[in-house]
């Protein structure tokens, strides 16, 4: 019995250190971080249009599209599709996405579409696409916005996030930042 009472008291005092002081210290440190640890935002003319790390749905032809999402890009939740590779319903969904993509991008042939543009991300909030996925959308955007493809390709290059130190990992592009850049193009 004495052991249990000691255990209760040890639990309560250690809780003060690990569950109160520790998070408060990190919250203090976060005040020095971008946007005080509330998540970095992107603003246009003082109006917040999104969080830099959180992906958004883009379905209009004039914007670069994001990847498909099982969460509908509503970041009040997050979800992957959790579909297995042999699931027939899943393969039908992917087929439908391919068809939609081809309808909106008539100058693209099927064998150019990278699979990431027709498969759902893990979080449902993926903020990025790869440069390849951006490039195959250039013709559609150039036609819709009536601007030259070269300008858009240059924009893609300037927004490409290279692998870490040029050595490790993937090349990505933040879709929201890319589309903000697109709106600023004349």
């Amino acid at each position, binding site marked *: 019995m004495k052991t249990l009472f000691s255990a209760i008291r040890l639990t309560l*005092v250690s809780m003060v250190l*690990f569950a109160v002081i520790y998070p408060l210290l990190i919250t203090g440190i976060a005040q020095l971080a971008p946007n005080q640890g509330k998540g970095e935002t992107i603003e246009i003319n003082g109006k917040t249009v999104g969080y830099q790390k959180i992906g958004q749905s883009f379905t209009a032809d004039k914007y670069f599209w994001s990847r498909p999402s099982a969460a509908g890009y509503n970041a*009040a939740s997050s979800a992957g599709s959790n579909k297995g590779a042999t699931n027939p319903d899943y393969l039908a969904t*992917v087929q439908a996405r391919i068809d939609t993509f081809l309808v909106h991008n008539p100058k693209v042939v099927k064998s150019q579409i990278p699979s990431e543009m027709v498969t759902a991300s893990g979080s*449902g909030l993926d903020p990025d696409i790869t440069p390849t996925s951006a490039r195959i959308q250039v013709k559609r955007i150039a036609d819709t916005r009536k601007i030259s493809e070269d300008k858009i390709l240059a924009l893609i290059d300037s927004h490409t996030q290279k692998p870490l130190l040029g050595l490790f*990992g993937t090349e990505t592009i933040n879709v929201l930042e890319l589309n903000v850049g697109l709106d600023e193009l004349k």
Partner: protein
Amino acid sequence: MNTEISGIIALFVATVLLAIPFGKYIAKVYAGEKTLLDPVFNPVEKLFYRISGIDATQEMNWKQHLTAMLGINFIWFFLSMFILMNQGWLPLNPDGNPSMSPDLAFNTAISFIVNCNLQHYSGETGASYLTQLVGLMYLHFVSAATGMAACAIVFNALRERQAEKLGNFYNYFLKSCTRILLPVSMVVASLLVFNGSPMTFEGKDTITTLQGDSVQVSRGPAAAFIAIKHLGTNGGGFFGVNSAHPFENPSYFTNGIEMITQMLIPFAFIFALGYYLNRKRLAWTIFGVMTVGFLSLTIPTVIAEMNGSPAIAHLGVVQPNGSMEGKEARFGTAASGYWSIATTVISTGSVNSMHDSSMPLSGAMQLLAMMINAFYGGCGVGILNYFIFIVLAVFISGLMVGRTPEFLGKKVEAREVKIAAIIAILHPFLILVGAALSSYLAARDAPMGWWFNGNATGWLNNPGYHGFSEMLYEYTSSAANNGSGFEGLGDNNPFWNITTGIVLLLSRYLPIIGPVAIAGLLASKKYIPESAGTLKTDTSTFAIMTFAVIAIIAALSFFPALALGPLAEHFKLFK
């Protein structure tokens, strides 16, 4: 070289390079030597002990250790049950999330005290900030420290002498928290906040997107939580999709930090064993066996993920980056595949991609990693699991050469081997009984009444072989105290909450009690100095022997189940 491949090689090398000195530090902490943080934490610990009425210098035998450990774990269970079932009205709940149902609270509380973190809820909608910090993050610290303290007891028991008294549980426990977990968590959490993870007490934000949609964005005190969830190999995420969430794991760089953080203590404990017992060769032998095991699971997974799915190729699109369903563009397939095995060999269970959508072969490797559960393993408990296999290997080798089996100068006799055999059999027993029960119900599509809303097949998210894999994975993850899942499974209902809760309890405490008991029994025996007739346990021959024992036990127990699930699906996909 491909930058995705070089990325994962760099991760592994960096982890080993950090773990060697850190292991030396851990050995010093448990040996009671002076360390860097003594001036800060010695007074804090003294104060804690005074308030609690604990004498941390009083040495305990192995039974007293276990009593102390189980006693304090018991308290944590009730405390977190209370918070989870009352979070709706308790403070720090800006998003107004409701209190948990009793069966969900039961499962969640157990799964956090046992270092598993199955998480049948979603962080954004199922937990208040009070729950996240006091109900769950506190358990991240103390459940990891429980495993580490148990391992420290075993270290102490394996020293070259005859002893009953094996140090003090509270001393090992609290030092694990203050000297190891807290300082490293501070560093990792700080790195995370500067790289995009939120640390705020504000609730959801509502914004209008560039295209004009109105969406909400969940935030919260995440960075502190994420750091300890990895360091303590807990794995329970702040947000629903865990480290696939862009706030929980914002970039390739943070992915590397989180990866190294979760493997650091499991690696370091192996080296700590070498320093503590002054048997560095033994430590490197153990590390070698574990690394061979780890690589033979990782390499096929990374290749399978980078090659992509034939079913997607059949639809006519290209897969330049491999199989991207359930994966994030910023991590890519190599780092996602590597993570999926790292998180399953050690018992973290955090995910940066959705395992349910992995290639079937990767799913088989993830399952196998948890079925073996002894390559590196969780904080402290990884070595305990491996210790069981060492005892069995010593016993079998002893029989083969016709000598009394010995380990580190202590005779291994019938009682120790019996305990080891029971613990080794318990793991497949819990997994296969659970999988058999649930798939029996699913095969009959049985009406479940109170246990589940609807018929049993309703909890599956995928048909066929993959559906079976989902159920097998859930029990394997519970029994390995891992916490990852094939998350398509509909698991927030009384059937899954209660059955996995029971598996969690049995599979956590018995595999701690067993090795501590064996070590305690060995410690009380006479120490026999090494002679020409001693079976050497730090040679490559013994390493191969241990690997063979692990492979045979795992293969014999689990091959049929793997063949029915992921292997069958693999051959269907590649036919």
